């Protein structure tokens, strides 16, 4: 019935949409910006990124500098140590900014690594199909049985405690879910008419994948990317917490939390400050990811 006579309001929206030429992405952006939690999260996250990037440049202390006030100095404004000093007498506030910088960088870079591997792997498997698909996805299944964090610990042992290797190691493990999502999407896109049209027009398979398939699976990928960044940040902090993360004097939120834990009875804020920062950043990413999912796939409304 609805096919024969769509409700009047729907016709109107459709016509307006046609008139203004709103794309799926315009719609999604509008829905995302009307989601309060997501907007607030984007603002907070933006501030956090600015602080992490530029804070250490303008701060009066350096993150390596051992201050005259001595270790575990309580928070004070003069001498200027708003979060006090750590067990080695370094300013905690600036170390927190550096830690946030490192954690965010790990999150973004490892996610990009996982994005590249996952999209390439999943799109190839889904598009080529047949035995190749079987083999490639079986490999993903095998990797899934690998206890993720132990795999990262092993990779970490192989490459030593090198921060770039941590990026790579986490990214190299996190691409599996991405590959599955991308493959599923590719399979459904593959059957669409425009792919058939492209094939009929003589476009090469590689070009069909890069120009027609991948752009159309960006939606679910974008959602998964925002939800992967917090997972990666957690994984890095997890390693750092176990003493397998970044090297001194460089730091990350996980290292700071671990140090804070050892001093928490005397100075609880040394645990609470990095813990709160980390929770805030992860909350923002999760709210943005949820908002993005609702915006791109509004079936639950």
């Amino acid at each position, binding site marked *: 019935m609805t096919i024969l006579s769509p409700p009047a309001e729907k016709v109107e929206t459709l016509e307006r949409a046609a008139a203004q030429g709103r794309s799926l992405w315009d719609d999604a952006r509008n829905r995302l910006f009307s989601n309060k939690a997501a907007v607030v999260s984007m603002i907070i996250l933006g501030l956090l990124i600015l602080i992490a990037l530029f804070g250490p440049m303008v701060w009066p202390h350096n993150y390596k500098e051992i201050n005259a006030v001595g270790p575990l100095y309580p928070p004070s404004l003069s001498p200027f140590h708003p979060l006090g000093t750590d067990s080695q007498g370094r300013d905690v506030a600036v170390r927190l900014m550096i830690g946030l910088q490192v954690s965010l960088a790990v999150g973004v870079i490892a996610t990009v690594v996982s994005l590249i591997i996952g999209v390439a792997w999943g799109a190839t498997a889904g598009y080529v199909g047949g035995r190749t698909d079987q083999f490639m996805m079986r490999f993903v*299944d*095998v990797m*899934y*049985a*690998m*206890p*993720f*964090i*132990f*795999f990262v*610990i*092993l*990779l970490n*042992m*192989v490459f*030593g405690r090198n921060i770039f290797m941590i990026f790579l190691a986490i990214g190299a493990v996190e691409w599996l879910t991405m590959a599955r999502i991308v493959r599923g999407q590719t399979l459904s896109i593959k059957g669409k008419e425009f792919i058939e049209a492209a094939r009929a027009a003589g476009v090469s398979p590689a070009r069909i994948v890069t120009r027609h398939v991948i752009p159309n699976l960006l939606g679910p990928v974008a959602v998964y990317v925002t939800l992967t960044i*917090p997972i990666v940040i*957690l994984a890095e*902090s*997890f390693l750092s*917490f*176990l*003493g*397998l993360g970044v090297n001194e004097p460089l730091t990350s939120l*996980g290292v700071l*939390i*671990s140090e*804070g*834990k050892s001093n*928490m*009875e005397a100075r*609880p804020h040394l*645990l*609470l400050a990095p*813990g709160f920062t*980390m*929770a805030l950043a*992860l*909350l923002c990413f*999760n*709210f943005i990811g949820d908002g993005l999912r609702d915006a791109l796939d509004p079936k*639950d409304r």
Partner: protein
Amino acid sequence: MQNNSAPSSSSNALSRLASRFPTGYALRRLLIAIPTMLAVITMAFFMMRAAPGNPYSTDRKLPPEVEANMKASLGLDKPLVQQYAEYVGKVARGDFGPSMRNKDKTVIELIGEGLPVSLTIGAASMGIALFIGSLLGVLAAIRQNSFADYSVMGLAMFGISIPTFVTGPILSLVFGVYLTLFAVGGLDMGRMNFNNMFLPIVTLALPQIAIISRLMRASMIEVLRSNYIRTARAKGLSERSVLLRHAAPAAALPLVSYIGPATAGLLTGSVVIERVFSLPGVGKYFVDGALNRDYTLVLGVIILYAGLIVIFNLLADLLYGVLDPRVKY
């Protein structure tokens, strides 16, 4: 699933469920598990060996003769491929070898010491998380978009975003150090009791409660919109009966497929929890083993964990098929 007839037919229903058990599929999956485990062992074995350092290195430099002797006593002087083949052969016969660092004990003995602690924490927190998580999820779903819904979902978001290595120390600081209600960490003379297991279990359960309540809410909302729920209401069943007997069991189905990821999450979580609360579980042996290059111990733990993940994934898939007649293998 829809066992609405008289209670006396429950044994009937059970046998009906059992008759749906896909034996062929289960066997096939078990066969696939063998190459999976072999791949895991192979990757872990060669990665361990690629790592710099070795189980016999100490702070001081050993004379070359001593080093050669130690290497030979651990069987590390043979070609790597031969060591690998011998190791796989032994594992296939259930022999995981002696620990390379702690030579008085076999890997099985060490894991056997740690496993009760890890299993207790894992099973108890999963039980708590399933109960509280699904309860909260159902509550949020039946009061969708109410204040209760928003507070449950807000809390769940916090539960997902705050890592266990932050909640753990904070809980032990508040309840252990300030309020002195529970032990801060460790066991009482190697024994587990309520006092020293409560905080670790709660810490590990919190993120799982959050995830499960979100899953349960989403699935419950979907189920409540379905036709058979409308039918159940239309035929005059009480709201309580509609929710408890018709909606909740069907809505719990996605939880079954969460069993696999949950196992992995609990195993990972237990590594942190055991570190935070200084408990002698399997995760602690793994981290110590990795730092000391105790090859056999690390491989043993990885095989155990990979095996658990494979088994629970299989169980989840089988259970899902048995519970949901729409699934075909």
